[in-house]
């Protein structure tokens, strides 16, 4: 037990003495949390909008005014021909083009029916979908208003059947994406730091020769591993704490669920990450290799964690792979506990899987650390 204490003491000293690394471990992640969380939004705003008005009637003007007034669209330009407009879209200057055909007003009054041409840059399919919805909303509102003006007694009075849908957004009425992202980004940062630090740690001692020196001492494998992991575990929890404070103070992320539960889960989660890092460290000869491998897994874990794109959207085989992604569980737990107030029983599946993962990973790390070659 005392032996572990000596190792822990040494590790902490080394970490805090490394002037170059300190800002990277502490300041950089928190800075990123504060700045980058603001980037995370799928809200579609400032849509680059242009129009071609072949009608020039008062009704067409009124329709265009509706778009001008909308906060979603930035009416940038009007073009006189389709060619001009297409070229602008190729250039990236516009993303949505509205073409009002000639005789728009006349068709509406006489035929009681008129068409509009809408072209949307659909490279970002999801955004295009949303843009289409917004365009339709504006057109329909305009349509409704126009009807009131144009309706005459001779027109049919049968009231159409309406199914009224009321969308209710729970836990995040304003659809604030930050509420969703901040806990997630925090998870990522804690994970990256602890993974890289633990991954490089043993390899570095290998490279400078002190590992051999330690192997000649009677120290037990488990003592060594625990002593090495403990400081990083503390650092991980420390980062989490500061991150949570930032989340609350700066981003006003709701913290509905039990803080104790979050810490409990995180403690176990960090053990998984450390175990992975240590395991990698045991198999590589140079810091460079350790880093590459850690990077490989990190990128995969991050992009497949459900943080940026939902896991439910992935093909079945990819979803199976995510079962082995510790970050996935962390993201789920964070969101469930913090934002919805889920309790111990609700996160039991994630908790038990993470616990199992921690035991296996750290077991492997200790087993694969060879004092004797």
């Amino acid at each position, binding site marked *: 037990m005392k032996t572990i204490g000596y190792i822990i003491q040494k590790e902490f000293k080394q970490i805090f003495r490394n002037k170059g690394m300190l800002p990277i471990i502490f300041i950089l992640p928190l800075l990123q949390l504060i700045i980058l969380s603001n980037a995370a939004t799928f809200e579609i705003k400032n849509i680059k909008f242009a129009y071609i008005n072949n009608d020039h009637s008062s009704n067409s003007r009124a329709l265009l005014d509706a778009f001008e007034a909308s906060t979603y669209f930035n009416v940038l330009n009007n073009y006189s021909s389709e060619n001009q407009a297409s070229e602008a879209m190729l250039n990236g200057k516009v993303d949505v083009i509205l073409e009002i055909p000639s005789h728009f007003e006349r068709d509406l009054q006489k035929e009681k029916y008129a068409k509009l041409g809408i072209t*949307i840059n*659909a490279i970002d399919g999801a955004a295009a979908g949303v843009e289409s919805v917004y365009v339709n909303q504006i057109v329909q509102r305009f349509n409704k208003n126009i009807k009131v003006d144009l309706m005459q007694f001779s027109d049919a009075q049968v009231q159409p059947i309406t199914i009224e849908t009321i969308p209710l957004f729970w836990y995040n009425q304003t659809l604030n994406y930050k509420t969703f992202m901040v806990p997630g980004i925090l998870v990522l940062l804690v994970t990256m730091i602890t993974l890289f630090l633990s991954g490089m740690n043993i390899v570095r001692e290998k490279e400078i020769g002190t590992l051999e020196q330690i192997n000649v001492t009677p120290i037990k494998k488990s003592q060594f591993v625990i002593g090495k992991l403990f400081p990083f575990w503390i650092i991980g929890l420390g980062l989490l704490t500061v991150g949570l404070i930032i989340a609350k103070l700066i981003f006003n992320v709701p913290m509905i669920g039990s803080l104790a539960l979050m810490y409990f889960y995180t403690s176990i989660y960090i053990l998984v990450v450390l175990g992975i890092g240590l395991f990698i460290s045991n198999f590589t000869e140079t810091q460079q290799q350790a880093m590459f491998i850690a990077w490989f897994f990190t990128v995969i874990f991050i992009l497949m964690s459900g943080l940026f794109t939902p896991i439910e959207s992935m093909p079945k085989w990819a979803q199976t792979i995510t079962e082995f992604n510790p970050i996935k569980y962390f993201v789920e737990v964070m969101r469930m506990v913090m934002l919805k107030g889920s309790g111990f029983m609700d996160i039991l599946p994630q908790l038990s899987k993470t616990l199992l993962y921690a035991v296996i990973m750290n077991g492997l790390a200790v087993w694969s650390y060879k004092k004797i070659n």
Partner: protein
Amino acid sequence: MKRFIGFVKKEFYHIFRDRRSLFILFGMPIAQILLFGFAITNEINNVDIAILDHSKDATTKEIINKISASKYFSIKQMVERESDIASVFQKGHVKAVLNFEKDFSKNLIKDHKATIQIITDATDPNTANTISNFVNAILQQYQKQLNKDITIVYQIVPETRMVYNPELKSVYMFVPGVMTIILMLVSAMMTSISITREKELGTMEILLVSPLKPFQVIIGKVFPYIFLSIINAVVIVVLSIFIFKMPVQGSLFLLALESILFIISALALGILISTISATQQTAMMISLMGLMLPVILLSGFIFPISSMPIPLQVISNIIPAKWFIIIIKGIMLKGVGIQFIWKETLILLGMTIFFIGLSVKKYKIRLE
């Protein structure tokens, strides 16, 4: 010149003899693009939803069947009371609850109007919104059906055309981003490590004492990695085209040139990072911690830049990846030629020169 070639040869030997790293440098991007091309998508399908049906009549049943039949949704459970909704959400599987009011059919007949609440778990606001929209679309369709015998007057019908990606495949949005990110991270990481390794091992001093000019040393270090990265880029593009069916509407040649430019800019960034790091560990941590998240978040890979707060939009301009993503999407999906992307190309070129220039300057400072 001969000295320079000798130096470059040495760099090549270093790389090719480290089999593990080599395997990772090539294997990783391939594995990642395969994985992400298939897995990164925000299309929804088989989303678990629950139904709270206060009416349980023929109409609600019909609507529920329609929803169930849709590939987007899967009805996981029925809920009996409003008070149960919270615990259903807390379990985490169900993403939306459809709440049908009492006397649904009756209301439709009597008042020509009935209400359905679409209650979504908006902790993931994007999915919630999408689910809401999709359910709405299904209901609108049904509504149209109910009204098919009534002529609706004064109707404005928008005809919408989706261009460059008519099927709204999310692959088109993400694959260029994945390509860019992987190339950027691998390139920057590769070179940042190469230089700091020499520093740590002490062989840097030998280089400094040699007659090679600082400029030659830096270029010499970048050179082998350009070669490696090009191989990576080619593999990635080939995979994108054949496995993900990304079109290449524009010129392949132009794509190749732009890719090389981007690679050089990323490598140069890596070199810059290494000139400001004292140890390998620091260089690597900066490449990864300092580059990874900003690149993923600010390059327009997943989140649209135009929706970000202005200060972040400004910052996103200094990330080479952002410009390259615009270029790739332009060439592959829009089919544009250089005349439409010269601005972005120039910016990348400028950045590359800046990174290299700054690296040479910092390298020189260490000499003194």
